[in-house]
């Protein structure tokens, strides 16, 4: 009720602080919990000792700082990136079924990584290759769409994204076909299933930088993006030429997606489930609020699932399988509650 009052008052500064504040508190709490949980439980006092570097035994410190911290950060950044990109693309394409993978970023990035693994490159180059190939895939889709007429361009962007996706998926199969079935193929397959288990602090910080940069840029553009949800004709007569913003914003979302996929492999459904859940709970939100809530919500969602995956099962269950297993029925529930697919 109070939120509705703030919403109608027209000032949004408060909204940003409230959502941001609550989001940060939630993520801090969940992160602390995730850092303590695991096969080797670490208590709050031990964490204090490690931070103050007065712990006697080095093992908890190594587990906490070299294993769990990068993994927790990776879950936060990846979840935020996929969910934020989903919320953004659904708005810009005016289509509730669009997900971050639609522009070809996911399959492009997956191909880049698979190729790098096939060539036996270092983890850094695997991530770099994934990021570059993901961006390249989206650029290709945009290039194809730019040849279409103005009125059908939004549809063409989605179709071109699907074409590029299909193309890169075929290339991934080609890489798998030529890979050594004894060691390269399993590692490619495992990577494609999506997991955060190998997260290192360097790659995580790279992903984090991209996600933060794009997230801040997109949030600053929130009113232009709100305008982008109107019809092209309306926008043009309102003095806004949507084309450059649309391309810029889609590119930004794709950079976020590529960064996430290069970090974690292909993790589906986050970009679809979380923004829809946010809209189910807060249907009246502005784009800025929806985007912020999706970023925080996505981070929390993926951190919860990843923590569950590594604590509840004795073997490392690939994260991508869990997000799909949980995501699909959950999405059905969300859709049924909404009674329809309106944005």
């Amino acid at each position: 009720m109070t939120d509705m009052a703030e919403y109608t008052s027209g000032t949004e500064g408060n909204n940003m602080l409230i959502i941001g504040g609550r989001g940060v508190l939630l993520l801090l709490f969940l992160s602390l919990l995730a850092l303590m949980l695991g096969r080797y439980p670490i208590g709050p006092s031990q964490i204090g000792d490690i931070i103050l570097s007065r712990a006697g035994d080095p093992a908890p410190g190594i587990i906490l700082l070299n294993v769990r911290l990068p993994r927790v950060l990776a879950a936060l950044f990846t979840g935020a990136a996929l969910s934020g990109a989903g919320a953004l693309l659904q708005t810009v394409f005016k289509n509730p079924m669009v997900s971050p993978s639609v522009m070809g970023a996911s399959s492009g990035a997956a191909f880049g990584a698979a190729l790098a693994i096939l060539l036996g490159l270092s983890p850094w180059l695997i991530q770099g290759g994934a990021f570059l190939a993901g961006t390249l895939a989206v650029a290709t889709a945009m290039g194809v769409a730019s040849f279409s007429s103005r009125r059908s361009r939004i549809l063409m962007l989605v179709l071109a994204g699907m074409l590029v996706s299909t193309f890169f998926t075929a290339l991934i199969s080609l890489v798998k076909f030529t890979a050594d079935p004894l060691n390269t193929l399993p590692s490619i397959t495992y990577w494609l299933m999506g997991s955060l288990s190998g997260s290192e602090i360097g790659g995580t910080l790279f992903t984090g930088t991209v996600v933060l940069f794009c997230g801040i840029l997109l949030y600053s553009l929130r009113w232009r993006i709100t305008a982008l949800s109107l019809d092209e004709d309306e926008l043009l007569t309102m003095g806004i030429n949507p084309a450059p913003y649309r391309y810029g914003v889609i590119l930004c979302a794709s950079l976020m997606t590529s960064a996430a996929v290069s970090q974690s492999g292909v993790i589906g459904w986050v970009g679809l489930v979380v923004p829809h859940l946010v809209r189910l709970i807060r249907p009246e939100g502005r784009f800025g609020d929806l985007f912020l809530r999706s970023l925080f919500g996505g981070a929390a969602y993926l951190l919860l699932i990843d923590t569950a995956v590594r604590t509840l099962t004795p073997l490392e269950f690939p994260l991508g399988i869990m997000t799909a297993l949980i995501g699909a029925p959950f999405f059905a529930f969300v859709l049924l509650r909404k009674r329809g697919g309106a944005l």
Partner: protein
Amino acid sequence: MRESVLSLENLTLGYGGKTVVRDISFEVERGSVVTLLGANGEGKTTIIRAVCQLKIPRRGRVCADGKDLSQLKHGERASLVSYVPQSHKPGLPLSVRDMVVLGRQYCRGLFAEPSREDYDRADRVLERLTLGGRGGELFTSLSGGEQRLVLIARALVQSARYMVLDEPVANLDMGNQIRVLRVIEELAREGTGILMSSHFPQHSLWLRSRAVILHRGGILARGEAEDVITGENLTRIYGTPIAVVRDGEGTAYCGPRPEEPERNTLKEMII
């Protein structure tokens, strides 16, 4: 080339191999209403789209206050001509106020959020359009007539000198039709030049507007509504007998007469 007019100069418009209108010209003065009448497919919407620079003419041009609209930047154009679409496909679940302030986006920076002043202006306009206090509601929760008024409000905050409306009373009940017509009348009185398309010739008469009647790719008649909206002209453009009748107070009404002969031929055909 004249100041204070929106002028359509020798416009020829078409799609693919088909020419919809050929070499038509007329003007909309500031402070007046011009109604575009014509049967379906005669090019009313096409002309509206050409005026808003959404459709590139084969020949001819559109000028506002002496400036060729096709040569202007999007923002400059928006300060001269605003557009009220026939319908709005809902995207984000926007509140009424947010929907209206988007009309001010073109004079704000890329990263700017709508200012206090923008919201105040939106509130004043909504108040005028009998939607005061409804700003916090969701746009999609309003009735069709109210949504139309919000779209007019959004065009109004643009502060353009001319407003172009594509069938502003389509799909509205009679009460809402009058509500929208009142607003249009008032805007014209305050100095906005208004071009609207319509399927209701009597509205043109009620507004004491000027009318442009389209027929077979050209202009059949134009002038004061009183003079050109006649049973004869309407019968010709709609292809069915139409009567213009006046009540005791002199208010005009237009309507079709049921066509007996055709019904007979239909009966004969069935037999």
